[in-house]
Structures are given as structure tokens and as C-alpha cells.
């Protein structure tokens, strides 16, 4: 009985040690990217379904907010019928994110609920939550093991969403030990089955500090559909300021 207790407590201790280690790795990854102030980039999304390809493009600006989640403004360029549509998001570590959309035909701004996260984004293999800002507090962490992935030494971590209405039971992430950025994320659905795999490549370092993957590819392991993201024109520490990430600013977005 005593022995069993010792084994159990050791097990719990190792579990919480794994949790603690996981959290500190996540915090370190967050810390290493701090100080980017803001950045802008262009995203090209290619939806690939058994040979046919469809492209969607958007421009993204992100503002770093110390002590809260980041703010981002996405403006769509293609398809042309949604060109000029813009989405402003305030990410929050524990509270639900806040989101507004500008519909350019009416110049109407609508506040939208952010709980509807698990649905597909523009018909792609990405859901809205996959593209949301990854704040440390949105997940609990557990370090599973350490192993190389395609020659890069990685921490393999299990992430459990702490926010409501996630489409996932857990994420398994391979985090590169050198650059503290993900190389791969496996997404498990609510039933615990592997659903999708996201791989990151062509990392480039900006401002001598901030690593960004210029290519990402999400593969749905069930439907075999793929969505490729290509990022370009990264610019850091632009003149953008807090006032450019407000509903007032969303209201004046032009073009796209």
C-alpha cells in the first residue's frame, strides 16, 4: 500500500514536473519573441484538393501588446468579391478574444462572436482558431519527450486548449530547441483522433531576433486536402501604433 502511494506520488510528481517544464518552455518561446513591437506581412493561402488549386490572399498587421494579447488587422485582397473585407482581433490570454469585421460594400462594421472558432477559415483546412494569436495562457502544457525532427532537435509538447469551444482535445507540438519555434503541430479532434498536421518551414530571422516561418502546410489526414500558407514582405517595427488597431481605424480601411 505504502509502496503504491510512493509510486503514485512519484508519478504525480513527474507529471507535474513535465507540466512545469512544458509551461516554462512555452514561456521561454514567448519571451524570445518579445519586443517585435509590430510587424506586417502578406499571406497567400493555397487550397489544394485532388489537383485543383484555389488562392486567397490577405495582408496582416500585428501589434504587440505588453500584458495582454496581441492585436491584429487582416485585410483580404482575393478572392475579389471579398476584397477590402477586414478583420480586427484583440487576443486575450484568458478572456475570449474580441473581433470586428468591416464589410466594405456597406462600410458596415460588425462585432462578431469569437467562440465560433472550430469552423473552416474560407473553406481551407485551417480553422479560425488555428490562425488566432497563440497566447501562452490559452493552453496547458506537458513536455512529452525530446527528439529530433528532420534533423532539428525538438521538445515534443502536449498542449491542451484552456479556452472554451475549441475543436481540439489536444495539440502535439514539435518545438525547435534552437529557435524556440514550432516545426510541426498535430491536431487531435474532440474524440482524441488525429485530424490534421501542420508543418512549418523556411524560417527566417528578422531584426536579429524574431523567427518567422515563410511556409506552412496543413494536411487533413482524413480528407487528404491540403492548405499551403506562404508569407512574404515581412516588415518589423513599422510606424504603426495602437491607434491603427482600433475600430475607428478599421472603419477607415481602404482597398485590399
Amino acid at each position, binding site marked *: 500500500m505504502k509502496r503504491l502511494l510512493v509510486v503514485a506520488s512519484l508519478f504525480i510528481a513527474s507529471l507535474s514536473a513535465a507540466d512545469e517544464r512544458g509551461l516554462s518552455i512555452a514561456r521561454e518561446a514567448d519571451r524570445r519573441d518579445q519586443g517585435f513591437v509590430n510587424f506586417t506581412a502578406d499571406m497567400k493561402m493555397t*487550397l489544394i*484538393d485532388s489537383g485543383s488549386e*484555389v*488562392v486567397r490572399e490577405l495582408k496582416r498587421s500585428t501589434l504587440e501588446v505588453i500584458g495582454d494579447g496581441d492585436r491584429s488587422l487582416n485585410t483580404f485582397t*482575393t*478572392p*475579389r*468579391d*471579398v*476584397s*477590402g473585407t477586414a478583420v480586427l482581433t484583440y487576443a486575450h490570454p484568458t478572456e*475570449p478574444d*474580441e473581433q470586428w469585421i468591416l464589410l466594405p460594400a*456597406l*462600410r*458596415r*462594421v*460588425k*462585432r*462578431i*462572436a469569437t*467562440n*465560433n*472558432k*472550430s*469552423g*473552416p*477559415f*474560407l*473553406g481551407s483546412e485551417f*480553422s479560425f482558431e488555428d490562425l488566432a494569436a497563440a497566447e501562452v495562457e490559452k493552453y496547458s502544457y506537458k513536455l512529452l519527450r525530446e527528439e529530433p525532427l528532420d534533423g532539428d532537435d525538438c521538445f515534443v509538447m502536449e498542449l491542451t486548449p484552456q479556452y*472554451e*469551444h475549441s*475543436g481540439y482535445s489536444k495539440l502535439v507540438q514539435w518545438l525547435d530547441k534552437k529557435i524556440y519555434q514550432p516545426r510541426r503541430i498535430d491536431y487531435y479532434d474532440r474524440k482524441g483522433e488525429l485530424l490534421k498536421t501542420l508543418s512549418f518551414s523556411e524560417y527566417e530571422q528578422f531584426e536579429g531576433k524574431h523567427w518567422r516561418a515563410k511556409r506552412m502546410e496543413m494536411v487533413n489526414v482524413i480528407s487528404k486536402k491540403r492548405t499551403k500558407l506562404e508569407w512574404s514582405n515581412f516588415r518589423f517595427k513599422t510606424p504603426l501604433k495602437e*491607434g491603427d488597431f*482600433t*475600430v*475607428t*481605424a478599421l*472603419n*477607415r480601411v*481602404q*482597398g485590399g
Partner: protein
Amino acid sequence: MTSPSPLSIEYREGSVSIFITLMLALLLASTSRAEELKGSMGAELRLYPSSPKYEGQDDDMLVPSLLFSPSLTKKLSPTSTLTSTLFGRLHSGDSDQSHLDIRELYLQKMIGEWEMRLGAAKEFWGVTESRHLVNIINQADLVEDIDEEEHLGQPMLNFNREIFGNELRLFLLPYFRERTFPGQDGRGRPPLPIATDAPLYESGVGEWHPDLAMRVRRSIGAWDIGLSEFYGTGREPSLRFTPSAPETLQPYYEVIHQQGVDLQYTLSSTLLKLEALYRSGQGDDFAAAVIGVEHTLSNILGADIGLMLEYLYDGRDASAPVTPFNDDIYLGARIALNDVRGSEMIVGVTIDRDNLSSTISLEGGTRINDSWRLEVEGKVFSSEEKSDPLSIVENDDLLQFRVLYHF
């Protein structure tokens, strides 16, 4: 019949050449640097299953039109942009429905923290779906849509800024644009055609009455709150029978003063919405409100389904412009498939609680490919009582298809 005004040109036969010249000029302009041309052009087919109710209205069951709406944005400097959007409809046959309008033509300039807009522009206020009660800056274009969902560009001097977490928007509206109505042969008009070329104004300076408007909006957690104030020529006219012109109804525009509030509470997947106004100047002072709820069921095989319930109240008296929304319930569903084609649809029904007159509306769209989009719209009016405003349009049920090329 659209009225002649500085921003709207009426077309009859032989207008095609002007139409095409304008389009070509815009397309050529697009080749310059720092400019962006986009927009849509395409064809529309309206189908009217019933014969018209009034003498003089066209009895064609199928009504085709050509549409175009180019928009040119030109960056003049890092802080200033010129935006222009035209809208044109070329209607088949000899009809009053062909028209061209400047939806937008304005200079946008950042002056410190202030955004300035000078010219004809669009402005939208409000949160509810069944009626846009507090939305007042732009005049409705009833030739395009008798639902008041299409608007004309409004000449303005507008200043906007963020101040202590509030969005402040100030407007001087120096020139009033009359509401457009279907002409004598058009569908969706009252028993007598509306004399849009002979409007009456309460103000002695007519359409040059300088209107003032202001809006303050802010978000506090899950709340989004907007307060607005408008003083000027009311956008809705009363329609008057004048013995001297017994063949038509004359629009009469009062000077009104209106306070509006719009409120949304974003709670999980449920939105609670309120729009309300208090208006003086059209008969006795009155209040009107729309209160509603929208609940979204998300990711149902990838689709989002929003269910909407709204209650509409309007306390205006008989001397104010007529509204069908005095005591009505709206039930609606919004379906977004979140697919590659961006397929979406809204269906809804507005029912008068008193006499059960109703309007069923349907709007849907899906992408054919990256450039082409198919849109469907339908309306079914049923009037249970002769006195209900809907009895005017009860024969004007409509099914409409559009194929639009987006560039």
C-alpha cells in the same frame, strides 16, 4: 424616375455610349501607378410572377439589366487617399430604372489623430438585421432595392477620431439627396407614381439645408454601444396628394431631430441587439425600436447557422412617413457554409403582429470561380389587410438572379 441632381444622371435610350465611355475611362485610369481599380460588372434577371397592380406599370415577367460598379482608389500621399465608386444600371427597354450614381467620391486625409473625409461617402450605423433604424446618413436608393438596403453617396465633411477609447464621428452634410423611387412603369411603387422631380421641403433652403450628425461608439468588454444625434432633413419623405397635380404623389421632406442608440452584447455564441431612436419633426414626437437576439450554431459539418429573432416597434402617427414596421416580428436564419465558394444565405420573414401581413425574404450567393459570383434574391409579400402598407406591393413578389464578375 430618378431625379436630376449633381450626383445622379438619368439615362434613357442612347445612353449606352456614355456608359461605355465612362467604363473605358475608368479602366484606362487603372493603368497608372498607386491606383487600384476594382469592382464588379454583370447581368441581372428579375422575375415577377404576378401582373402589376397599378395602371402604367410594366407587365413584363422577365426584366433583364446590366450592372456595373467600378471603384478606384488612388493613394495621393502617405496620409491621403481618393476613393471613387460608381454604380450603374442599364435596364432593358424604355424604362426609368436605368441610372448611374456616384456611390463614393471623396478625399480621405489623416490630420494628426483625425481622419477627414470630404466628398460623397458612405456611413453605416447599427446592429440589427430586419431594419436599419438608426442608420440615417445615406439616402436609400429604392430603385435598386425597395428594402432600403442600397444607398446613395452622401456629400459630407466628416471628422473621425479615437478619444479616450471612444470612437467619435462628426458630420456636416451640406446637401440633401432625395430618395429615389421606381418610376411610373416600375414595380414596387404606390398607386400613383412619385414626382421625384418636384419634391417639397419644410426647410426654406430645400436640399441645401446643412444637416449635422454625430456618433460616439465604444466597446466595454462584451458591450458595443453607439449613441447618435442627427439634426436635418429627414431621409424618409411623406408622400402627399396635391390636387393641382392629381396624377402623382409629391414627396415632402421634414426637418427632423433624432437621437439614436445601438447596442450589442456579444455573449459566447449569442448576440443581444438593440436599436432605438427618438425623433421629432414628423408629426408627434415618437420612439421606435428593434430588439433582437442572434444565436449561432457553429461548425455543423463546417457550416455556421445563425438564428435570429427580432421585434420591431414604431410609435409614429399617421402624419409621419409611413412604415410597415409598427409592431412586427422578424424570424431569420443566416447560413454560411464556410466552403471554398463562400456560399451563404439569409432567409427571413417579417410578420405584422396586428394583421399578419408578412414579407418573406431570401438572399444567397456562391462563387462560381475566383472571379464570378452568382447571387439570388427573393421577396414574397402577403398583405392580409388593405390598410397595411404592404398591400401596395402585394403583386410585386420578386425572384432575382445576378451573375457578377469581380475584378
